[in-house]
């Protein structure tokens, strides 16, 4: 069996009386793209938030490469090599595209805190080049000196992806990377994610769009009402009656 990068074992989380996650077990293997799907309110985002330290699980543990992430601060988790793309793009709106990516690259190079007030940004040639390559990679190079406020939603998402990728994370978490995108933008994003996959980056994708999921995922876990009801390769999931019930049942009622 391949090396397990992220190991979620027996995680429970309740909000008030509501069981948001119950006995979640999830093993993400190195180099694989693992999709988590499920109807609205199934607990997908909660699971992702537990993985990046935004929420602490009530019981259970999240291990990343042998390190227990429970109770760690989000920036320390990032420094371990976990990057996250948000559902609504989170970027630096007052800065230019290239600066957005440079900041991400600086975090990778300098760590969580680094105080050298007399360094000069314009002497960071290597860093800038790296950021430019990254923007080229996601197809935003021509906009590199624009302010990000003017970008389309799809471009913002690609920029956010570039900010994550420039850090060469060992694990990339994507929260509905194509939500709110046009079909054209969605396809471009799928292509981009496929290319990343070829480089062997481990990914967890949370997604509604089955087209995206089946184009990318090596393995799919289906979440319903806070529990994993099915797990397997895309073909197995497609034919699974339980999954159909969870989805279609939910849709028809």
């Amino acid at each position: 069996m391949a090396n397990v990068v992220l190991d979620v074992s027996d995680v429970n989380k309740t909000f008030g009386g509501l069981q948001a996650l119950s006995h979640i077990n999830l093993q993400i293997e190195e180099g694989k793209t693992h999709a988590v799907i499920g109807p609205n309110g199934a607990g997908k985002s909660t699971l992702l938030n537990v993985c990046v330290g935004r929420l602490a699980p009530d019981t259970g543990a999240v291990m990343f490469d042998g390190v227990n992430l429970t109770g760690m601060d989000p920036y320390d988790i990032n420094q371990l090599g976990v990057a996250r793309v948000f559902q609504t793009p989170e970027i630096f709106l007052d800065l230019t595209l290239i600066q957005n990516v440079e900041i991400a690259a600086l975090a990778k190079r300098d760590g969580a805190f680094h105080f050298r007030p007399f360094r000069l940004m314009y002497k960071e040639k290597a860093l800038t080049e790296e950021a430019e390559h990254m923007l080229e990679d996601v197809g935003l190079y021509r906009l590199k000196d624009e302010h990000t406020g003017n970008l389309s939603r799809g471009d913002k998402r690609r920029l956010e992806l570039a900010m994550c990728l420039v850090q060469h994370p060992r694990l990339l978490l994507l929260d509905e990377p194509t939500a709110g995108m046009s079909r054209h933008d969605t396809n471009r994003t799928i292509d981009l994610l496929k290319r990343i996959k070829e480089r062997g980056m481990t990914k967890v994708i949370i997604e509604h769009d089955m087209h995206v999921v089946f184009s990318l995922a090596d393995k799919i876990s289906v979440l319903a009402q806070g529990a994993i009801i099915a797990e397997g390769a895309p073909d197995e999931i497609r034919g699974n009656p339980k999954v159909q019930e969870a989805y279609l049942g939910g849709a028809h009622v």
Partner: protein
Amino acid sequence: MASLTAFQPSTPKRDAIIMAVFAAVVLTAPIWLTPIGASYPDLLQRFAIFGIFAIGFNILFGLTGYLSFGHAAFLGVGSYAAVWMFKLLTMNVLVAIAFGVLVTALFSIVIGYVCLRRSGIYFSILTLAFAQMSYNMAYSVLTPITNGETALILETADPRIIDRALLGDAKEALPSPSLFGLELTGYAAFYFCAVVLILAFWVSLRIFRSPFGLKLLAIKSNQNRMIYTGYNTRPYLLVAFVISGMYAGLAGSLMAITDPLAGAERMQWTASGEVVLMTILGGAGTLIGPLLGAGIIKYFENIFSAVGKTQLSELFAFLPDGLNEALVGLMSLFVGEGWHLTLGVLFMLVVIFLPGGLMEGIKRLTDWAKSRRQGGETVGDGAAHQPSE
């Protein structure tokens, strides 16, 4: 506003030019300020000192967006510390400055640590509360250190240990602050402040151009993204807060040098409000803006405070009597003692109509001129508009 406060890419050559022009402008100030009657040393010193104060405030507010309402406390602490050095050790200004800045640094670490546990409004309220607390304490518990309402002043009987050891106990009169024997009064004091201002500006420029400055701007833009990008934002904010506090302490020490006394009124909330106004009037987040704001406010304070009813009646003497009296009556609210009213009105006008400050106004004008010159050809200028929230 976005485009102004954003990180400005630059080149070594461009920065060198900026520094050279800046130094030249500051050092020749006594000459080019003569036509507007602002070239006497006392006012020039104030320009430089409040310029430093505003530059420092801008490092916190302009770069991180954290709005402090308590910066006058640091100014006051810097003054007290400097005067104590004069009294205890020596009249050498370098010692006073070093100690003033050091004490404010320690003080701002403590206050920053507590206040930065919250952001936004909470932060503003907390800094205001701390400044008020310091102000109250200066008048009550701390009177042994601050001398309460009488203000801390130099006395002939002060120990001045180093000076007495080196020079003997000769002098009867009160000594003046000096730089290795050079007495710092009048223009000498201004040039000293000017050199410190140039250095302070240089440091600020370097911070603006550094990865550190870029990160601070990113915190202002989206702190959540910063955290998930791997940054521990709190130490960044604390460092910015402390640097900014040290600038205020430096300004406070310089105040003590140009006029060797320290009173608690320097720590009042109106004084904190004044530096906020200087910064936003000029343009928060811009390099030059805060300096411009400080200069304008101190200049008009100087003029307005000196004007009384008689001058006003003379000024409007050409008008018919009734109108004259009405106008003088109205105007006299804003001058002399009423300078603070002018300040308050200015404050509101700037926030309402020109939140980006004068620098934004200048930019708007030049953009407009540019687009005029290009004759209808519309410039893609989305960046000049405020970003949607």
